[in-house]
């Protein structure tokens, strides 16, 4: 009789599935390291207006002055002068996959992006190194006034809209890495959804780092006008190199009155990538912002998607899942800042550590004076799968308004012996039982994903049956 042995092992087949790399080809590659010259060169290559060049240079000055965070993961081993900050692989952006250079198209084919587009996406962006190489949007949405383009094109084609919002949610001075991104940003998505337009099918961006010692600094700006809806999904992978790459994005989102925005991330960088991302949304009256944030890859991730609840009735949800395997540290979480009365937030974090991996939940709930009748609840559950792994929980709650209800609960546990025993007593093998329990543990996350993604995620976590014996 064939016995199936399921395994839980992120990154086990990473090399074959995502870890391949193409020979490095580029039409332009900036000098290694960071300097005003490199920043000016990037801006010049992109033929940007003067205000943006100035913005970048000012951000670089802020970068020089600010210090790296002393809390969280250990960032001391990043050599910022050993990184290429800009790499352009192709001269023009494709409107159809045929326009994309063959080797790059091949990469995205292997990653399954065009297939996904055909099946269930309303629009796709594909970023390779520093530039977006492919972009498409359903005609129907275009005619409704939806803008879905790369951020560089947006600066060129929609200058007023761009300037009105760019850098307003996360100014360069926000933190050192936001300053870095502001200085050298390239690519990313720009989305504008007009009043009352509901984009029922998700839009997707796929980010790929191919070159070694590469820094990817995409910049995403999403504006949901009143009563609109959009679901944006991002995925990311990179080849496995022995030296480190850096991914430091800035994502700014504005959700206006009555609108709803959902932002889903399935982060699966290779384990030589430092993933240091600043994500923030502001939600106005009765608007809803949802971050669905899955962190499976990278060596170190520091990412705390945040929501500023600016007007009464605004609602924010963060659902964060982290998986840390060997040598990984996932320092993830969420922030909710209640500025106005009658706002609510809900943060749920699920983390799994295995093979000496470390997951940390780090979060903030802040309630300003006058934000009466606000509610916030934070729940963190962590699962440790073996002796060497580690889990931490660092929630912060700051409340300056008494008429609120704030709660935080966290648990850390191992896979329960009783549950295992129960399943095993029903004839299920230990490994299978463990998989079932882990699957159940992260179910609140998988059920929020579009079905195709849920399947993909299960594949990523490799809760799959491998091999058959006997």
């Amino acid at each position, binding site marked *: 009789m064939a016995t199936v042995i399921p395994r839980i092992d992120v990154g086990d087949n990473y090399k074959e599935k995502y870890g391949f790399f193409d020979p490095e080809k580029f039409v332009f590659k900036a000098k290694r390291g960071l300097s005003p010259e490199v920043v000016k060169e990037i801006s010049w290559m992109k033929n940007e207006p003067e205000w943006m060049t100035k913005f970048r240079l000012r951000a670089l000055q802020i970068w020089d002055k600010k210090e790296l965070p002393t809390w969280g993961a250990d960032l001391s081993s990043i050599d910022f002068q050993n990184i290429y900050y800009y790499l352009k692989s192709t001269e023009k952006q494709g409107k159809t996959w045929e326009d994309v250079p063959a080797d790059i198209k091949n990469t995205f084919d292997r990653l399954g992006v065009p297939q996904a587009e055909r099946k269930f996406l309303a629009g796709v962006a594909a970023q390779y190194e520093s530039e977006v190489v492919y972009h498409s949007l359903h005609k129907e949405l275009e005619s409704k006034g939806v803008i879905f383009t790369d951020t560089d094109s947006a600066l060129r084609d929609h200058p007023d809209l761009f300037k009105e919002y760019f850098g307003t949610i996360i100014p360069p001075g926000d933190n050192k890495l936001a300053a870095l991104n502001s200085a050298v940003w390239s690519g990313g998505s720009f989305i504008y959804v007009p009043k009352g337009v509901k984009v029922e099918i998700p839009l997707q961006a796929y980010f790929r780092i191919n070159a070694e010692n590469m820094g990817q600094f995409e910049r995403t700006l999403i504006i949901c006008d009143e009563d609109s809806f959009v679901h944006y999904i991002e995925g990311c992978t990179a080849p496995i190199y022995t030296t480190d790459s850096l991914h430091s994005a800035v994502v700014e989102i504005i959700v206006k009155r009555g609108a709803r925005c959902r932002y889903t991330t399935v982060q699966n960088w290779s384990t030589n990538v430092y993933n240091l991302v600043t994500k923030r949304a502001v939600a106005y009256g009765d608007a809803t912002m949802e971050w669905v944030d899955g962190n499976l890859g990278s060596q170190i991730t520091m990412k705390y998607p945040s929501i500023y609840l600016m007007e009464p009735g605004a609602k924010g949800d963060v659902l964060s899942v982290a998986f840390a395997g060997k040598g990984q540290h996932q320092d993830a979480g969420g922030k909710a800042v209640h500025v106005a009365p009658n706002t609510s937030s809900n943060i749920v974090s699920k983390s799994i550590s295995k093979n000496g991996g470390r997951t940390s939940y780090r979060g903030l709930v802040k309630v300003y004076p006058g934000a009466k009748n606000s509610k916030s609840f934070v729940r963190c559950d962590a699962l440790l799968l073996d*002796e060497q792994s580690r889990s931490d929980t660092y929630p912060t709650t700051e409340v300056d308004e008494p008429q609120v209800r704030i709660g935080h609960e*966290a648990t*850390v546990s191992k896979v329960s012996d009783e549950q295992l025993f129960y399943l095993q007593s029903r004839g299920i093998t230990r490994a299978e039982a463990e998989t079932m329990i882990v699957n159940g543990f992260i179910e609140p996350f998988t059920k929020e994903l579009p079905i195709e993604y849920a399947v993909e995620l299960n594949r990523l976590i490799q809760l799959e049956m491998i091999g058959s014996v006997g």
Partner: protein
Amino acid sequence: MAFTKAAVEELSALHGEPEWLRARRLDAFGVFEGMSLPDTRRNEDWKQVDLKALNLEAYAAFQQPNGLAPAGTLENVGATLRQRGTSPAVASIAPDLARRGVILMPLAAAASAYPELVQRYLFSAVKPERDKFAALHAALFSGGSFLYVPDGVTVEQPLVSQFWSGGPGAAVLPHSLVVAGKGSRFQFVDQFLSSDRQEATLASGSSEVFLEEGAEVGYVALQHWSVKTWQFANQRFHLGRDARLRMVDVALGAHLARLRVEAILEGPGSSADMKGLFFGTGEQAFDFRTLQDHVGPHTTSDLLFKGALRDQAKSVYVGVVRVEAAARGSSSNQANRNLLLSEKAKATSEPILEILNNDILRCSHGATVGPVDPEHLFYLESRGIPHPVAERMLVQGFLGEVLDRIPVPLVRDAVEQELAARIE
């Protein structure tokens, strides 16, 4: 006299301390001089602590003479030690306890009478190097109590230390050193009191408690300094194999009451039950930092810090549960609940888990901040209970969970009275 080397020597002479203790004080004073005040912006351990209005220069190391502790006898206690300011303490102990080898005496006297014991334990847990205030405390501690309960001795009635502040402008830095022999059982109470509710002082009130194998110790600290006191205190408990600790911290006084409470569960099978109760009014600020450090296997800890804040009172709670790699089969719980009774009251809560081992039964924590539950109020009011009465009942019920756990009736009654007055 300000915080000077001469003050250290004078204080040591006043208590007739042995040479080794004088030398230790001077070492600690060196540490004090070499340190600056904690950086409340950068130092995580001191974040959110407002030290702006603190001026160490404004306090004298001590004031002599500062009179005796108020007279009066406590009923139903096994032994008492009373001290005011830096005046040498007065201890009395029931004859049968003394006969069984129980020692409760002024720390200075114990340093001469039992040098090996005191030398071994004193400031081995609460080290002067931790911060400037801990160094000051070790250099200029006003005296304090030394309690030793021999192996296998059970003391039924509580043992009580009472410390009164030593007058306005004088520092009062009492220290309690408690050694619980193997299998001993007793309850110990530290009371920190000000005769004048408005006098400005700088205070500590630190304790080191060592539980040897199988010891069962109840520890209660009642902090009721004046409302103009700056308190910086450290309590640290070391638990041996199968030792059991039940402790309650009650914080009622001080302008800023900073208290570190740390239980180090080293011995396999040891367990700690830690409770905190606070009620802030006016402009009081509380700052609690707790640690449940699971070092040994099969250790358990349960912590609950609860409090209510009224007027502009503030509280900060930062608590760490740490389960070390060797602490197999451990379980831990940590909860902080804050009740806000006015518009301007503020509570910050930061419960932290650091789990380095997966062979744990369960580790969990929770924190809540909010006003009296409107649904509960509505329920009571719908039963004809007027709003103020209903609110009082709910606050009493909220605090009762910890209040009822104070194992010593003497303290429980005193706290209950004070809380009733504040709830009104």
